[in-house]
């Protein structure tokens, strides 16, 4: 999974985007997303695709990693693009550009914002328990991925995987997943005890620094408003 690489970029980057307030980044990401969804002209959509690419380059995140992840939505949208291409090729291209642009927007947000800050912004609109579930999910994911990696190594070393024996592999994989699920449940029980001892009452306190806005926030907001205006205005050049 590339999630660890993305997480590393978000926590260790030092670009102007990393320094911007999380709430600003979430706001402009959603603004660009809205712009992409409402744009019906291929020219505008292309501009909206180029913007996150430029921002990714400027923010110094690993472009290769991001493009690798962005390839998935491109592949999935290909099916819908082919269907739309039966109507017109522009419609098909629009589907591809919108899917790729939206994915790059989200990846840019995730690669420049640590997940605790991101879920902190979400906590403005979501119930506390849901935000806690996000935090527990994210935290558990890395621990369980480590366990899975070790388990897969053990299975291979002990001859539990044969490329040609599908049922045999499935049986062993199910056993491994079962063991991991049991580990996960034990882990949740431990988390419950630890958090209870620390006074957890159903809402993990998350930092929500959004004020005062910095110069970079102001510039990003201004830029996003210019882009929105550009999308809304029907250009006749």
């Amino acid at each position, binding site marked *: 999974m590339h999630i660890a690489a993305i997480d590393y970029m978000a926590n260790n980057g030092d670009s102007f985007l990393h320094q911007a307030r999380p709430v600003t980044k979430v706001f402009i990401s959603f603004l660009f997303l809205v712009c992409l969804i409402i744009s019906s002209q291929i020219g505008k959509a292309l501009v909206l695709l180029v913007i996150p690419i430029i921002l990714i380059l400027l923010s110094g995140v690993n472009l290769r990693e991001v493009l690798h992840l962005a390839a998935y939505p491109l592949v999935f949208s290909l099916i819908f693009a082919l269907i739309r291409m039966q109507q017109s090729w522009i419609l098909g291209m629009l589907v591809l550009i919108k899917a790729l642009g939206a994915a790059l927007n989200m990846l840019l947000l995730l690669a420049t914002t640590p997940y605790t800050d991101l879920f902190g912004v979400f906590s403005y609109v979501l119930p506390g328990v849901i935000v806690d579930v996000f935090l*527990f999910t994210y935290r558990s994911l890395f621990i369980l991925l480590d366990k899975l990696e070790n388990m897969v190594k053990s299975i291979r070393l002990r001859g539990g995987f044969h490329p040609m024996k599908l049922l045999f592999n499935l049986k062993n994989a*199910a056993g491994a997943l079962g063991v991991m699920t049991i580990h996960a449940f034990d882990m949740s029980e431990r988390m419950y005890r630890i958090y209870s001892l620390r006074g957890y009452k159903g809402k993990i306190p998350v930092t929500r620094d959004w004020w005062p806005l910095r110069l970079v926030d102001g510039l990003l907001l201004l830029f996003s408003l210019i882009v929105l205006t550009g999308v809304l205005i029907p250009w006749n050049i």
Partner: protein
Amino acid sequence: MSHIHLPDGVISPVWWITAWIICITLLWLFARKLQGDELRRKTPIAGVIGALMLIFMSLPLGFIPVHLSLAVLSGILAGPGLGLIAAFAVNTVLALMGHGGFTTIGINTLLMGGEAVLGYYLFKAASGRIGAVISAITANIIALTLSTALMIVIVSSAAGLTQALPIHSHDDHGQAQHGQAHIDEGQYTEDKGSEQSIENVQFLSLAGWSAVTLVILAGIFIESLVTGLIVRFFSRVRPDLLDSAVKG
């Protein structure tokens, strides 16, 4: 299984806004139910279930182009409410990674969470009569078939999938002129008409749909089998994990 990875901009706003409203309402209702110690105990469970679902999804199934989600198993283990909350967390994390659109989180959560909710109740109803393993497999097959059918209905009506169906009129494309040309060519005899009908069947598309159906069936089969095997493992090693679904 039914996670459709619909990108942004494909589904019409009516669909995704409605799905978001239903999803948020359900999440709010389920979240409200959790209070006090139950809330403290179950929130980490929902978190690890979400993490497990993400890991299950990352497992490659060789040459079969689908992935597991084990949403039904999550529903059986965590219960319907937590299953839905975990599905929401999973879809949000995936959307942030560009895996499926942000606007389609609502639809994806309803589909995946629906599997968890339905699977839980089906398993609960059947496990007392036919044993845990068979119940889990049956619940899985029914829940996945229904959610996949629902997914196809949503995609068909929202993304214009009728364009890809094997038999459709050329007028469906909105090519009025093209349709007119057929009429202007004159009178078709009965034989010519049937030849034309045969030509209208897009055999490539038909083969494509057969392949899609086979892939979906293979996905349902594998996911049901793995769920059954994991439930069998639990009933031997940790039967208490299934208690909440078996005893209620």
